């Protein structure tokens, strides 16, 4: 237990975070790129076409992973909000703000690919059904956090307000997830569920698992990059950032 606490405590130090993330990023970047390339080539070129939708179903290999990550990313952001409110760890504020930007990008990606998919299959770019509308609300929540952050002079007040907004917004996540079951919608119910086998042929499903994993790792990479930029901006007056800017590198902290 004490190991976990000391790890969390170190994670709260911007300098330690910057150094450790420098070590992780190349590996994570290669992993994300590899998984995405593998999954996308497999899904687009080698997986069989769908019996009913033909090749247009292949956008699923981007649409579903982006949607997955946009929902999971919201919980990450709200979790950072809890840590920020309760333990007042600065790095949690950084994660909250970075998570809003990356999450908004993922949600936008899910909405755009869904729209492109809707035209050849449903016959429309957009409808106001429960699933699509609640996803749009998610995008506005992410953008709302970003905007709210800018609305305050002090970083502490901004972080507090954003944490509360992201906590309130968590009610939207189960609504998005269950919207296709609770109400009649144009969007079909979930293909992948924890409680049963996916209603998708294994030859089509396996590349989807790979792109979903790839999107999760990509999310982590983008989040770390955004957080590092934010850390440098916040710590611009710290000596280690000055040394970094002068090209003197980042030495390990003495005494942890």
């Amino acid at each position, binding site marked *: 237990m004490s190991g976990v606490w000391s790890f969390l405590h170190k994670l709260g130090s911007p300098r330690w975070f910057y150094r450790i993330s420098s070590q992780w990023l190349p590996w994570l970047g290669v992993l994300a790129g590899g998984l995405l390339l593998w999954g996308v080539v497999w899904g687009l070129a080698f997986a*069989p*076409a*769908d*019996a*009913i*939708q033909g090749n247009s*179903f292949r956008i*699923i290999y981007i649409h579903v992973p982006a949607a997955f990550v946009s929902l999971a990313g919201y919980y990450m952001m709200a979790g950072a909000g*809890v840590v920020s*409110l*309760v*333990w007042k760890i600065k790095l949690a504020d950084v994660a909250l703000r970075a998570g809003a930007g990356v999450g908004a990008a993922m949600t936008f990606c899910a909405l755009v690919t869904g729209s492109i998919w809707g035209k*050849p*299959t*449903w*016959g*429309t770019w957009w*409808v*106001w*059904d*429960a699933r699509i509308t609640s996803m749009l609300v998610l995008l506005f929540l992410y953008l709302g956090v970003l905007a709210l952050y800018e609305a305050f002079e002090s970083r502490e007040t901004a972080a507090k307000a954003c944490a*509360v907004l992201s*906590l*309130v917004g*968590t*009610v*939207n996540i189960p*609504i998005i997830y269950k919207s*296709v079951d*609770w*109400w*009649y*919608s*144009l969007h*079909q*119910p*979930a*293909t992948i569920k924890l409680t049963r086998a996916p*209603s*998708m*042929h294994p*030859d*089509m499903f396996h590349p989807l698992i790979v792109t979903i994993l790839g999107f999760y790792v990509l999310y982590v990479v983008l989040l770390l990059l955004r957080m590092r930029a934010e850390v440098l901006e916040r710590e611009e007056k710290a000596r280690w950032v000055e040394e970094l800017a002068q090209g003197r590198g980042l030495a390990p902290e003495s005494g942890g």
Partner: protein
Amino acid sequence: MHPVRRQRLIIVAFIVVGASAAATLIFRALSDNMNFFYAPAQIAGGEAPTGRTIRVGGLVVPGSLKRAESGLDLAFRVTDNRAELEVDFRGILPDLFSEGKGVVAVGELMPGGRFKAAEVLAKHDENYMPPEVHEALKKGETAGLAATGGDDDVR
């Protein structure tokens, strides 16, 4: 845990629980208005308003699609396995429109009980399979084997 932090954690829990309770109450009150379309049984039961644009959804009854000799006029029946509704439409149907499959029509309920659609959207299900598997399932079904390709209900 430090008392101050415990207090903050309680406030956080209160925010989440309060917001969830509020959302639950709102969506309970809205319930039916959250539906994207009416089912034919709801329309037969008089739940849908006449004289304004609504949506109706269900499965296209196999063999019910009738096209006019010339022009783009067509008609089909939509069912939810409880009631059926006649739909008239002039236009081009989406590629995925087919008998026995899901459809959502946007339009107006006519006094005679027919539905005049201005737009027809195809609904697809959550099952994905290669054409060969689809063929095999179809053959299995016609041969009377228990081939289940997933639940093809109204949603």
